[in-house]
């Protein structure tokens, strides 16, 4: 049974990857890092439910095998299909965001890092629905960088997903999606939380392709 589930997870994963590539001509732009196996936290902008599968799909197989997206437990455990796809296909680190739970998200994240996994996180916390390129970052990224300073924190910009799959739409539009990986950052010695988070936010926003306003 376990083998069948693992095989099914592999097949579903490949299907998601092929579908994403076919629809969006998905492409990685390795601006600041090389696609080599190193322990990293990819922190990305978040506008659509398609964001995480896009980063997961664009990573080369060797990197994809060791990466674990950090995702909300309430979303991924809602029904049996999600409960299969989230934990078993994407190998998510599921965190419970409710304040009353004992199982603190940061403990699970640090445990995943200590196992040697790379992570995908969305430091804005929620999907960005506004006109600003990024929402203010939550503290999680800073705490990870402080607790495990050797891990590379890689800014990762996902372009166009807000047009391809906006919140509430069912049919994805086939537009070209490029995932840009920037140069890694680390928490500097003595750097305050706010200073680091704004530096991280700037590093991510600088990867955004210049969007030309039609006028």
């Amino acid at each position, binding site marked *: 049974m376990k083998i069948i589930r693992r095989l099914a997870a592999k097949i579903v994963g490949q299907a998601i990857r092929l579908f994403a590539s076919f629809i969006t*001509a998905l*492409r990685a732009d390795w601006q600041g890092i090389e696609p080599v196996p190193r322990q990293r936290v990819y922190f990305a902008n978040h506008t659509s439910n398609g964001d995480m599968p896009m980063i997961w799909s664009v990573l080369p197989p060797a990197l994809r095998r060791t990466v674990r997206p950090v995702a909300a437990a309430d979303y991924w455990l809602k029904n049996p299909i999600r409960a299969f796809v989230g934990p078993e296909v994407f190998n998510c680190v599921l965190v419970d965001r409710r304040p009353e739970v004992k199982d603190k998200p940061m403990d699970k994240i640090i445990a995943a890092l200590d196992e040697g996994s790379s992570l995908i996180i969305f430091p804005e916390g929620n999907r960005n629905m506004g006109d600003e390129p990024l929402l203010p970052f939550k503290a999680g990224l800073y705490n990870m960088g402080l607790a495990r300073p050797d891990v590379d924190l890689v800014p990762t910009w996902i372009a*166009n997903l807000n*047009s391809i799959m*906006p919140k509430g*739409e069912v*049919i994805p*539009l*086939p*537009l*070209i999606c490029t995932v840009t990986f920037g140069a890694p950052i680390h928490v500097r010695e003595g750097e305050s939380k706010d200073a680091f988070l704004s530096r991280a936010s700037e590093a991510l926003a600088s990867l955004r392709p*210049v969007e*030309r306003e*039609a006028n």
Partner: protein
Amino acid sequence: MDNTTSDILMLSFGAMGILLALTMFGEVLQAQRNPSNPSPVLETFMTRVKSWWGMTILISLALLSGRFGVVVLFLFASFAALREFLTLTAKVRADHYSLALAFFAVLPLQYFFVWCGWDGLYSVFIPVYAFLLLPIVSALRGNANRYLIRVAETQWALMMTVFCVSHVPALLNIDIAGYGERSVLLIAFLVIVVQLGDLLEYFFGRRIGKTRIAPGLSPKTWEGMACGVVCAMGIGGLLAWITPFGIFGAIAMAGVTSLVGMFGNIVFAAIKRDRGVKDWSHLIPGQGGFVDQLDSVIFAAPIFYHLTRFFWRV
């Protein structure tokens, strides 16, 4: 093996022979250069030759397989081109349905009509029905912000990448006396004349080009273009035997389509400059996107189709 098939094979092998010669020519030049000092012109030339290999093989297979293969090949080319185009156009959330309809209804229906040979329908489907219906769908979502720009750019994308491109397979539907099944060779004629004209225009433009046609927009020169068109006419004359045009007709058709195609390339250079991009995408390595490859064919195909229909249809 019938006549048409053997003619397609002959043209394919001829094209591959030329590509082989070009590949060897480029390799020899590359071998002679100091590897620490690569020439950008030579690099561009070599990547272009490589993508022509791919195009030649794909088009040859499609032509050999007949109507279905040709329609499917250009359907996918249109899909890739429309995706590149709409990635760069103005759109908001309110356009989600109309853009989804453009991709998943308008595009396949247009090629279905071409496949069925309903020329009365595929000639008006996008310029009339899509033109009127998609703006309705966008307007119903109630967002007026930059509305005219959004619907106009979407319509432009459909006209260029679906309507115009579909005129290549539509050549199969023109009834020409005594030509019959050989109409698939019209596609070969169009593609060879336009592509070789472009290649020679590029070559001569680099060599003797002086006067820019559209300075600040495209490197094309009047001298290069004149040479390219004259060469295209010569090639058209040599290929007259695969067409129903006769030798002078073939020369004239080659000249007109090649000229229109080159101006089409300038139009697409203007769009790219407006949007601040160098290439339409990165799908064809070292070459840019599908629209970069198709731009001259996009302009040449409808003109070629209608001139053929007007002068040679039964």
